């Protein structure tokens, strides 16, 4: 595109607009990092807590959740560094980032205000986490995330009505279904394809 003053026919103008909008595609690989990182971290924490609770007499199994604190910093630093390198920001990117940041704020408030109600944490967290997951699925136009959010809602109900064992296993199962499987699918797709406008 060297001749900047070249006058175009109407068809050529339409062709330029169509071509440029089609070319404006954004990589989605960063989204898969956060899904996989948090998927594995929460999966490990929740399963460890469940196994400690079932197999030992230790009453402070919730200590495993302290690993989430450095996890928050790793995720924020990764997002910040990647964001600085980003050469383009779409409206979808902004919705995606701020939805997950609002989820982080809600989660922090939840844990600070309701720390003593830890026996019912998983069902509430699944309900809160389902929303950004579903919105991400819509923004990225990626159905496995939407199905994952659906699984979160179902598992939250199961955690509520299913008793302690079901409640204890709801979170690790949710991580596999809602974060890890969609995360690997997203990474696989992101390596050879991109989503327009996301």
């Amino acid at each position, binding site marked *: *595109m060297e001749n*900047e003053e070249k006058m*175009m026919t109407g068809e050529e*103008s339409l062709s330029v607009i169509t071509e*440029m*909008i089609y*070319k*404006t595609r954004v990589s989605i690989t960063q989204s898969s990092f956060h899904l996989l990182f948090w998927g594995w971290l929460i999966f490990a924490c929740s399963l460890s807590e469940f196994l400690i609770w079932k197999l030992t007499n230790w009453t402070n199994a919730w200590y495993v959740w302290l690993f989430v604190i450095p996890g928050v910093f790793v995720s924020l630093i990764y997002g910040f560094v990647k964001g600085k*390198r980003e050469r383009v920001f779409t409206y979808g990117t902004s919705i995606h980032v701020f939805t997950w940041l609002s989820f982080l704020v809600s989660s922090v408030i939840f844990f600070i205000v309701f720390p003593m109600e830890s026996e019912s944490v998983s069902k509430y967290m699944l309900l809160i986490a389902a929303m950004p997951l579903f919105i991400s699925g819509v923004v990225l136009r990626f159905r496995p995330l939407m199905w994952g959010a659906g699984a979160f809602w179902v598992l939250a109900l199961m955690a509520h009505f299913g008793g302690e064992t079901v409640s204890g296993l709801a979170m690790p199962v949710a991580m596999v279904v809602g974060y890890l499987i969609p995360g690997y699918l997203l990474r696989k797709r992101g390596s050879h394809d991109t989503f327009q406008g996301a």
Partner: protein
Amino acid sequence: MTPFRELDPLLHSQLRLAIMSVLISVDSAGFSYLREKTEATAGNLSVQIGKLKDAGYISVSKSFGESYPQTMCSITDLGRKKFAEYVTALGDYLKI
């Protein structure tokens, strides 16, 4: 018969229209991203960005990221309006 609306001469140029078409789709885009998508030379792209900026169609901000300066461009409300008018006029011209 609807009178034919004249196409905005600022937008009716290949590279400037390409820049605006990219920016209409995104929140903001860096200089290198625009260069990659339009396949223009740095000098040429810089001149055309300057013309669009002077007309108020786009805004340009400079930041310092990872030890090198980064130029980010985004479309303004005026630019969005002019682009919409251009597309409408083009549609009239092409009868689509």
